[in-house]
């Protein structure tokens, strides 16, 4: 509760929080099918219709309602972003804790492996995964998850190393606490703050990467809708039907903005020392 109050007391936290909540509602409605029209229904008589009362954001080349497709697309993009960040944060936390706790050879192996993954620009690594597995929603989730795992590993390993050397961990060991207990109770609990900040910012990157993959035709496959796919479809029609470009473009931008604002606010609130030194 205190954290919520802190977020809403922080200007960018308030704006970011409202945006993210709004998107979550839209995503849920889209996924549950509560859209103004059927996102897949083709209405040949109403092709490329400009925005009206019936079609708030106009229709596309096949007469499908853009607003409904956008809602479903937000749902799709958020699903991919949340699942991939869940994957990355889980894998990164386990690897980071293992590296810090076991040290020596284990630390060396895990961190060099992460260095190898970090040697690729994010979108390139994602493309490599897609090339192996073939395009699709699950591929996007795994690809984006793998891309961001090393970042979580680093975020967890550093603080975990210094926590491990602290007196209270030594004390717990002396009292005979089990390894699992110390790892979850003493280490993980103290890592919640940096992890929360990282998760929020990673959601912004994941949305960006998902949109990029779909834009290239290597993410979500038609006829399912995703924001990147909608933008890609708008390319040849933007002069006659600019709404096909503007609404999905705005939707992607504002969602990323929301998570960035929220992430910045959380960083200020949870860990003032972590004031950003990286973009």
């Amino acid at each position: 509760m205190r954290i919520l109050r802190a977020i809403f007391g922080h200007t960018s936290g308030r704006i970011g929080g409202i945006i993210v909540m709004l998107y979550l509602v839209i995503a849920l409605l889209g996924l549950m099918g509560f859209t103004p029209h059927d996102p897949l229904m083709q209405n040949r008589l109403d092709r490329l219709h400009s925005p009206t009362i019936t079609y708030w954001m106009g229709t596309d080349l096949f007469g499908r309602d853009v607003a409904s497709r956008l809602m479903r697309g937000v749902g799709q993009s958020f699903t991919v972003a949340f699942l991939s960040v869940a994957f990355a944060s889980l894998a990164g936390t386990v690897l980071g804790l293992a590296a810090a706790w076991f040290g020596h050879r284990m630390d060396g192996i895990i961190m060099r492996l992460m260095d190898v993954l970090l040697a690729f620009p994010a979108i390139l690594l994602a493309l490599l995964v897609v090339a192996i597995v073939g395009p699709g929603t699950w591929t996007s989730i795994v690809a984006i998850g793998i891309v961001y795992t090393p970042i979580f590993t680093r975020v967890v390993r550093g603080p975990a190393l210094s926590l491990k050397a602290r007196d209270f961990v030594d004390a717990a060991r002396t009292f005979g606490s089990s390894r699992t207990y110390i790892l979850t109770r003493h280490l993980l609990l103290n890592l919640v703050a940096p992890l929360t900040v990282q998760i929020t910012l990673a959601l912004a990157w994941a949305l960006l990467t998902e949109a990029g993959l779909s834009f290239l035709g290597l993410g979500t496959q038609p006829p399912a809708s995703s924001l990147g796919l909608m933008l890609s479809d708008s390319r040849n029609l933007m002069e006659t039907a600019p709404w096909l470009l503007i609404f999905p473009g705005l939707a992607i931008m504002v969602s990323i903005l929301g998570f960035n604002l929220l992430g910045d606010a959380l960083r200020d609130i949870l860990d003032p020392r972590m004031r950003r030194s990286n973009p």
Partner: protein
Amino acid sequence: MGYLTRRLVTFPLVLIGVSILVFVAIRLVPGDSITAMLGTEAGLLTPQQRVALTAYFGLDQNWLVQYWHWLLGLFRGDLGISVAYGKPVLDVILDRFPLTLELAFLSMIIALAVGLPAGVFAATHNGRPSDLAVRIFAMIGQSTPSFVVGLLIIYVLSVGFGALPTMGEFSPFWQDPLRNLSQLIFPAITLGLAFAASVTRISRSAMLDVLSDDYVRTARSKGAPARSVIWRHALPNALIPVVTLSGMEFGYLLGGAVLVEKIYALPGLGRVVLDAILQRDYALLQGSVLFIAFNFMVVNLLVDLAYSALDPRIRLGER
């Protein structure tokens, strides 16, 4: 071991790791390489021809031997033959690299020319409405994907001015500088804007940190003019994180801005990777991905070296 020594020692290790990852990744692709290489024509092969081809490409040997031969090839500059382009992979990459390099440089110039002054301005006007305005623009800039910016630029150009960015055959700078710039200026602005937003944010926060330091206060109290305090005393130290950020971004850009190259139909390195995936040209994919990762790693190493040259605390292993 100092930070730098450790960094230099692990570099070749990571490089070998990267080559193994790329090698294994390509072999995880379902289906056999011969079919992948020949496409539908593979169906016309007799079993004997297939066996002969498999032996010719060394695909009948185990992965370790294959990897060793591939590695030896790499040292000779032999990355294999691209099926899609019908020429050596290295030639395809080197053909495309100048465009990517030039685009990366142009984007960086734009980003620094816009971002650095904006960041310094915001820091020196901290808390005022003009600072807020810069920060809002920077936040929006950072949240807008480059492909959205690119599409919007094309839209504004075509609807507002009835013009399109020059596309088609790429002309190198030394052959036709004007045409070259007309091809690259809009992609460079597209990539430069998001990059400028990051530069603005980081230079603002670095400047703010530095401006509250003792030596800046000393310079002020001994009566140094405000302009000299900002540009001579504060900025050089605030530049350290900006150098890191620029280096990393440059590394990303050298990897080819896949999305922006696609939007502007530019034949850069990012397009090579995309073509390789879409046309299932695995030799090309393997080579280009390795080339990009290598560039990325070298740039990051150089950034670390520059960083420690600028900040002696890192050289002494205090990080």
